[in-house]
């Protein structure tokens, strides 16, 4: 997939994407919608991330990483392996084309969110951790095409991913030190903050 979104963005998702999302593929990919929803908002549990409006190149890269095992998931690996290269691009485009989250976030303690905002926008000198938003963008909107948005993402999911970076089960040169530097309460804080962070113009 070209990193220039220009030439590969359709005005409507191709029929094959909708079919895969609804029914899966004959090669073992179960329907994406079962966990991620047709609207990309997932099921509210936080176990599955929202995908709506995520950058297509990022989504495709994650699917390829699941397929190869670079990113470990017993659940996602057979699904990703059940998609060929064109199908990966296609479902990635589908979810990228959806409106990002507009659901109200679950309430979180104000102090926790404030601490999360502090870490997100300023960082912490004693922990030697930089502002999350320096890479994850204003209010966590991401830096297309490579740095995913966090805005509105389930705090449970964000928390789990940071824990995986910390444990080394998910690998990232950039997330390695920050995930170790943050304490448990800090991880909860940034997760809470990003779940309730607002998108400008969202209704």
């Amino acid at each position: 997939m070209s990193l220039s979104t220009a030439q590969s963005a359709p005005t409507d998702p191709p029929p094959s994407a909708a079919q895969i999302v609804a029914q899966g593929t004959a090669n073992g990919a179960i329907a994406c919608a079962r966990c991620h929803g047709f609207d990309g908002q997932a099921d509210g549990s936080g176990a599955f991330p929202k995908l709506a409006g995520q950058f297509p190149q990022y989504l495709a890269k994650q699917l390829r990483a699941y397929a190869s095992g670079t990113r470990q998931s017993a659940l996602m690996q057979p699904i990703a392996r059940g998609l060929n290269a064109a199908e990966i691009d296609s479902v990635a485009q589908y979810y990228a084309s959806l409106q990002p989250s507009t659901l109200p976030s679950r309430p979180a303690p104000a102090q926790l969110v404030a601490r999360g905002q502090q870490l997100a926008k300023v960082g912490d000198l004693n922990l030697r951790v930089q502002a999350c938003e320096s890479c994850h963008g204003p209010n966590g909107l991401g830096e297309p095409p490579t740095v995913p948005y966090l805005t509105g993402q389930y705090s449970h999911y964000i928390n789990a991913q940071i824990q995986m970076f910390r444990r080394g089960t998910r690998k990232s040169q950039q997330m390695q030190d920050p995930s170790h530097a943050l304490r448990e309460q800090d991880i909860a804080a940034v997760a809470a903050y990003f779940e309730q962070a607002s998108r400008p113009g969202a209704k």
Partner: protein
Amino acid sequence: MPQTLKEVDVVVIGVGFAGSILAKELAASGLKVVGLERGHARHTVPDFQAPAIHDELKYSVRKGMMQDVTREAMTFRNHHQELALPMRQWEAFLPGTGLGGCGAHWNGQIWRYQIADFIYKSHVETRYGKKFLDPDLRIQDWGVTYQELEPYYDRFEYLCGACGKAGNLNGKIEQGGNPLEAPRSREYPNPPPKEQYAGALFRKAASDLGYHPFLQPSANMTRPYTNPEGLTLNPCVYCGFCERYGCEHFAKASPQTVILPVLRKYSNFELRTESQVLRINLDSSGKKATGVNYMDAQGREFEQPASLVLLTAFALNDVRMLLLSGIGQPYDPVTEKGAVGRNYAYQTQSYVPAFLKEDIHLNSFMAAGASGTVIDDFSVDNFDHTALGFIGGCYILCGSTNARPIEFHPTPPGTPRWGRQWKDAVRRHYNHTAIFNLSGTSSASRWNYLDLDPTYRDAWGLPLLRMTFEFPDNDLRMSKYVTSKASEIARQMGATIVVDEPRTGPFTTTAYQTTHNTGGAIIGTDPATSVVNRYCQTWDVPNVFVVGACNYPQNSSYNPTGTLGALIYWTADALKSRYLKNPGPLV
């Protein structure tokens, strides 16, 4: 009346790389150390965080992290017989200030000098004969050799997490590194940076022409790294806001990231910021420092007595402090008597813009401070000068450190400076232009020197430093030759337009070149022609040490900081293992 404070063992003037490292080494030895920094404290969080730090107007154009020129400027003239006038704003070079000094906002280009650099005069005379040099040049040997400094280069590189590939490992030439470098005893602590597109194009062209390209060694981390002081740095994300900016990611080696947090933990170290040192005090003999006088932010003056004074305030400020304090004899270019201020040198920079086809998207804004692919084939004395009639050379670097638009919007020669054609040319060429950066030797010359200005003063009423400098003709001949070699590489790269632009005189303070100001308090073996001995101890006042690029008798092709790091640790060693055991002249 200045208030006299309780005596301490050591006063460190200026808390940048040299000041921080020396303070830590001495505090760790149990001494009571006070660090006096004239600027503000600043820390990675919150002061260097993005996006606020990525403010080109504030930091690049208005020089947000630099010395406050309104309070402490310098005067300048090209020639001895001219009237020096103040540099009313910084342009050609940007002296730093503040905790961390220039180390907080350098690019991270971390080099070693060549073996020949430390014995430059002997080497040139041996190879080319005594008559080879232009009569006004004053190059000198250092009095300390590369081999003696090698372990200290290693120590500084591991402190900083230097990223590169060894080219010469104990005499064995290694693939992927610089085959022309001086031998190193072990590999770099981290692998080299990712190569930019421009660098990859350069690599192919340079190889095709028979040169030896390699990735520039970098102090912008290429992976998570924990240094020997136990401090962890993050990988650099190639954000394109390196030189003149603090790093938000803890990715650039700076005093803030590699040493200060450890230093601050010593209860026997005290940091005082916004403390402007006015002079080093001497006793009646003039041969012993008793401490310093400084002024705080409220305008109160203090006398801080100390047994040992370390002057680490940046090259230019170091020389000024010696002059203001009456240490050593000021240099007079007419009589050539005196050593303080002599052998002022710079870095002979030139640029070759290479305008490429429109289908080549360079994305030069994706850059670390030390990004670039480089050849060393034309540096220092790496090539035979016999038939060329000059000494010295440049490394030739291709890549970008940034593409920040106020400063970078190149247009080909002949394009007007404004108007419709200018605008069209900017659009056409912004993402399709590679700039070669040539960093050249700067030969010391009789007539280039530093002293105190007779007229202009700083906010404390003290004379400004006066700089007298013009490029020696030797260096301009050198630049013409090496720049033409760079242009050949650019043509080989397929550039549609190549601008062969060697450095020419006169030196102007109105356009940025580099902040590699060297000399003025040079290291040497003869007190008549040097200010410090081989341990950076002043000849005149044995309890004053000066460590900075002011020690360099002339400048090599390379950025000075790596070599300064070696000198810092070398001096720390001399202080701990020799001086403290038996204070007095070490040579």
